[in-house]
């Protein structure tokens, strides 16, 4: 009824977690009922004093009451102990489990998931989302549902006792909840409005910060600042509107319950004066009214938390709903030819094809160069070959095995990649290179580093190879990072090398060194190089020319030059640019 699959999905709980919530709820009900029973002691004592006052009876015996107090404290303690256990103590298992399964899921996701995201934001949200849920699981759910149930029980009891006073006492509860949930409906449309303004502002601010150079260069600070200020003002206005409308609801919900005491006094007074009830009845309801609302005072703040945590749940569910890239863990390729046959690939966002009907073979032991204008699909081909993304049409095989059928991490064993983006870790140079092969010895690491021409710049660092690189190695230049990437690849010594023209952004000195290192890397392997420079591929065994997502030419460099087609034209242009100088 209350619980079940939908409940679990709503709060991102595991089955064990749900069981704990159930028990937490139960014990909350128990503690609340015990407290009401304790209040009963006050009622009984009052009753005794009343008889003393009105009928002159002797004062009540102390002993039974003391026993009652002690018994109450003991029972209450035990119940609260259990309640705490099932709400707080056990939550950490659930949290650990959630974080672990999230981490597990993340590492199985295809790399394309990470490509378009701001990793810093992803981590931040992941951590804070789980924290928020931790709070909801420990604080909120048990208390909230337990509160509902115990109040319901009490409500039924007092309704039977005297329905008029019961109404005067409890009317606030349903009204408050109606207001609260009603406010959500009102809330959403205004909130969407405000949120839209917020997003636009964030975009404006981001653009202003990103293009600050151009803004200053064109002396447009005032215009841009004015635009941003406008956006800030609009946001402020929208927020005020949201607050005016919904704030009333939410705050009304919390204060309306306070009116309960006053209405109880008023209705009770009238009933007493009319002779319908006696003092003890009024007394009982007055005892009730202040206590019945107690669990809810907190609850409203907690409910707000639950609303907010919705977003967190959605984000987590999105990760769990993203399909993993899976495949066989046994991989026995027959040689290392990479064969593209009619391969197609497109991004799902706008449906346009990034690759269409691509067919070529990169043979083992040969260098195959992919050339073409930017955006023609060269990088995509390389990434598909390593199953960084899954191709959607045709077949792509390594050694005769379709790559989409192999577990991505297993497949990776066959590839070394030297791309333009190099991720470095906040660890020493040695460890960053050792990443190439887990468990490689120091000698092996150093040998690879030397072969990649890293010695020259690493030895200039304060602690040589033991120098920590810093977060993402911002202190290293592009050429230095590139050489570390090559060292990793050398250490890994995989049979296929995918190379994105790594030397494009470097100056002369580094270029030679890097090229040197690359030369060592590429012997005897299947090499696929994404090339920008015509001259660098003249030595390749085969050239594949891509244009607008298709293969337009392929063959040896000599063949293509003779054919005087796209490739020939590009070569001519390159020669002209290479010798370009200002007169």
């Amino acid at each position, binding site marked *: 009824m209350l619980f079940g699959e939908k409940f679990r999905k709503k709060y991102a709980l595991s089955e064990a977690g749900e069981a704990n919530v159930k028990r937490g709820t139960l014990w909350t009900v128990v503690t609340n009922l015990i*407290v009401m029973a304790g209040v009963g*002691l*006050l009622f009984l*004592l*009052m009753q005794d004093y*009343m008889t*003393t*006052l009105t009928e002159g009876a002797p004062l009540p015996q*102390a002993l039974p009451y*003391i026993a009652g107090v002690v018994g109450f404290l003991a029972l209450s*303690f035990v119940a*609260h102990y259990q309640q705490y*256990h099932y709400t*707080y103590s056990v939550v*950490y298992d659930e949290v650990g489990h959630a974080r*672990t399964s999230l*981490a597990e899921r*993340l*590492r199985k996701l295809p790399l394309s998931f990470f490509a378009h995201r701001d990793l810093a934001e*992803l981590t931040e949200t*992941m*951590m804070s989302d789980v924290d928020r849920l931790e709070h909801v699981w420990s604080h909120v759910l048990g208390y909230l549902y337990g509160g509902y149930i115990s109040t319901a029980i009490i409500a039924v009891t007092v309704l039977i006792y005297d329905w008029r006073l019961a109404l005067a006492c409890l009317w606030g509860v349903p009204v408050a909840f109606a207001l609260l949930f009603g406010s959500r409906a009102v809330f959403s449309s205004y909130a969407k409005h405000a949120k839209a303004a917020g997003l636009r502002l964030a975009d404006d*601010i981001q*653009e202003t*910060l990103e*293009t600050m150079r*151009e803004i200053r260069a064109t*002396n447009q600070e005032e215009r841009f*600042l004015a635009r*941003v*200020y406008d956006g*800030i*003002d609009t946001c402020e206005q929208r927020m005020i509107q949201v607050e005016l409308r919904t704030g009333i609801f939410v*705050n009304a919900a919390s204060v309306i319950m306070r*009116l309960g*005491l*006053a*209405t109880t006094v008023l209705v*009770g*007074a009238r009933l*007493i*004066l009319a002779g319908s009830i*006696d003092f003890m009845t009024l*007394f009982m309801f007055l*005892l009730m009214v*202040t206590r019945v609302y107690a669990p809810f005072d907190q609850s409203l703040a907690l409910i707000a938390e639950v609303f907010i945590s919705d977003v967190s749940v959605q984000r987590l569910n999105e990760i769990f709903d993203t399909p993993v890239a899976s495949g066989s863990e046994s991989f026995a390729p027959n040689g290392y030819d990479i064969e593209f046959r009619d391969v197609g690939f497109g991004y799902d966002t706008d449906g346009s094809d990034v690759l269409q009907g691509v067919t070529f073979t990169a043979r083992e032991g040969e260098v195959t160069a992919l050339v073409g204008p930017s955006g023609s699909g060269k990088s995509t081909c390389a990434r598909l070959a390593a199953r960084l993304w899954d191709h959607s049409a045709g077949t792509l095989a390594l050694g005769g095995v379709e790559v989409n059928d192999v577990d991505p991490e297993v497949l*990776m064993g066959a590839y070394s*990649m030297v791309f333009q983006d190099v991720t470095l*870790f906040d660890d020493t140079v040695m460890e960053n290179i050792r990443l190439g092969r887990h468990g490689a010895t120091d000698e092996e690491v150093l040998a690879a580093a030397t072969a990649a021409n890293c010695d020259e710049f690493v030895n200039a660092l304060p602690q040589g190879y033991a120098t920590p690189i810093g977060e993402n190695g911002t202190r290293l230049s592009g050429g230095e990072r590139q050489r570390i990437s090559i060292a990793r690849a050398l250490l890994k010594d995989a049979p296929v090398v995918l190379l994105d023209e790594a030397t494009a952004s470097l100056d*002369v000195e*580094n*270029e*030679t060194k890097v090229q040197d290192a690359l030369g060592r890397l*590429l012997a*005897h392997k299947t090499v696929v190089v994404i090339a920008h420079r015509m*001259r*660098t591929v003249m030595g390749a065994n085969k050239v594949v020319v891509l244009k607008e997502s298709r293969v337009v030419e392929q063959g040896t460099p000599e063949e293509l030059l003779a054919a005087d087609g796209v490739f020939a034209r590009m070569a001519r242009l390159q020669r002209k*640019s*290479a010798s370009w100088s*200002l007169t």
Partner: protein
Amino acid sequence: MEKKKRGTASQLLNFAGAYRGLTVAGCALSAVAMATNMVPYVFVWLVVRDLIAVAPDWTAATNIERYGWWALAAAIAGIVVYFLALMCTHLAAFRTAANIRKRCMAHLAKAPLGYFDTHASGLLRRRIDGAAGQTETLLAHNLADITGTIAMFVALLVLLLVFDWRMGAACLLAAVISIGALFAMMGGKNANLMAEYYDALDRASKAGTEYVRGIPVVKVFQQTVYSFRAFKAAIDDYSHKASYYQGKVCKGPQAVNLTVTEGAFVFLVPAALLIAPSSLAAGTFAEFVTDFAFYAIFSAVMSTALAKIMFAAGGLNQAGDALRRINEVLDAPTLPVADDPLSPQDNSISFEDVCFAYEESDRPALDHVSFSVEPGQLVALVGPSGGGKTTAASLIPQFWDVDTGAVRVGGVDVQQVDPYARMDRVAFVFQNTRLFSASILDNVRAARPDATREQALAALHAAQCDDILNKLPEGVDTIIGSAGTYLSGGEQQRVALARAILKDAPIVVLDEATAFADPENEALIQAAFEQLLAGRTVVMIAHRLSTVVDADQIVVLDAGHVAERGTHAELLGADGLYARMWADYQRSVQWKIEREVA
């Protein structure tokens, strides 16, 4: 600790500007509202007193209905005041958050451009947003909550002690036990456990960050299982410590705490049992019963009050965090503007004994660099990477300020030149140029908004952009950016060059690396360069030595020093660093990917 936090909150309030008073008013009203909430209980006491006075003839207590109405009126008044309080604090909070955003942006608009190279825009935006958001919550809710809770507590104490202090004290006993339990939880050896717990939490957080950030790379090296294990170890450690601390160590004290806060009333029973006999003997039994009834009812407030206090205190932690983020942004350096700006006399540029080091670097990027550029000359800066070429070029448009020495344009120190005038005189094209989310036409006209459409189109033509315009649906009116089409790096570069051409500034600072694109774009960009640079004073960062063979002067920068200078012929003849670089370059032009034959 409390005082320090109050200080932080008031610092944040400084951003409230004119609305500061509203916050104060809101807090005051909140206090009044909370105190007013206690008033109905006074009427409860009155009702009980009247009824007991006439016991058991209840219908004789005719005044009680009036008390009921008063109680209702007080409750409603409390609610109305509470709303007003919240309105005040919210209005003030929103305004403060807006002001914070504006202040930060205005400040950043004056930061040296180099600052934006080292501080990612996403990070800055998050800092600003985070600070504004936290301040909002703090000022809208927490402050009012705290003042309200304090007021409530004071009112509570008054009511507890005014009717019968003995029974009142009995109710307070719960608070005392509660505090004792909490101290037991946090003090002594448990303090260490708590610290360990927070440490483990911190470590798990950091491990999570590294894990996620590294997945793309680690996956490639098939080691996700190891990084996963490392992360899992951190998670497990946290879970164990948390489970132990929160779960075991805190369980007993918390159970005690909860028991007495929810059951605060129960201490009334023994107190009453003690007092009853003496009051019966003294003839004040009716008063006693009245008071007992009152405290029985009122003790419930005790529980709510205690819970509220703990809740409210937590909010103050945010203040320090918010302030920290704001200060991170406001700590950005700003370029000072000269009081009496001077005008450059001509288009010459000179570096005079310039020294400059980046913020976090121990070695200088430029070390006593001097060279000069005559108007109309083309000077090329060459040298190994990290040698200082880009740094030197960046100083001309004042991306940074020199540490010592001076950079002069037209004989005037750039720091003395009016920034707007300087930007008009110097056009610069560096790597990673960005275009605005506007039409191509507007992008090209950005530096000269009053240029005509024809002039803009002419500039685009000169910058070899015709093919771009032809392939776009609306040609020059096509909007670029998040709402519309995207241009490739090479295409963006050419539009940026068109902008520079239209700007028609007499001095151009150019990073030639912009031409590193595919062959098609490269040729076009080079042609665009020719258009841009004709007849101007040019400082160019060159990466390919073939481009500067005909430069009027070549300055070779190595590790921040001027190693050599002269024309191409002179430098080759000098047989120094430049000559070596030239030889290297010639070799690399020949390079192709070769394989060793077995």
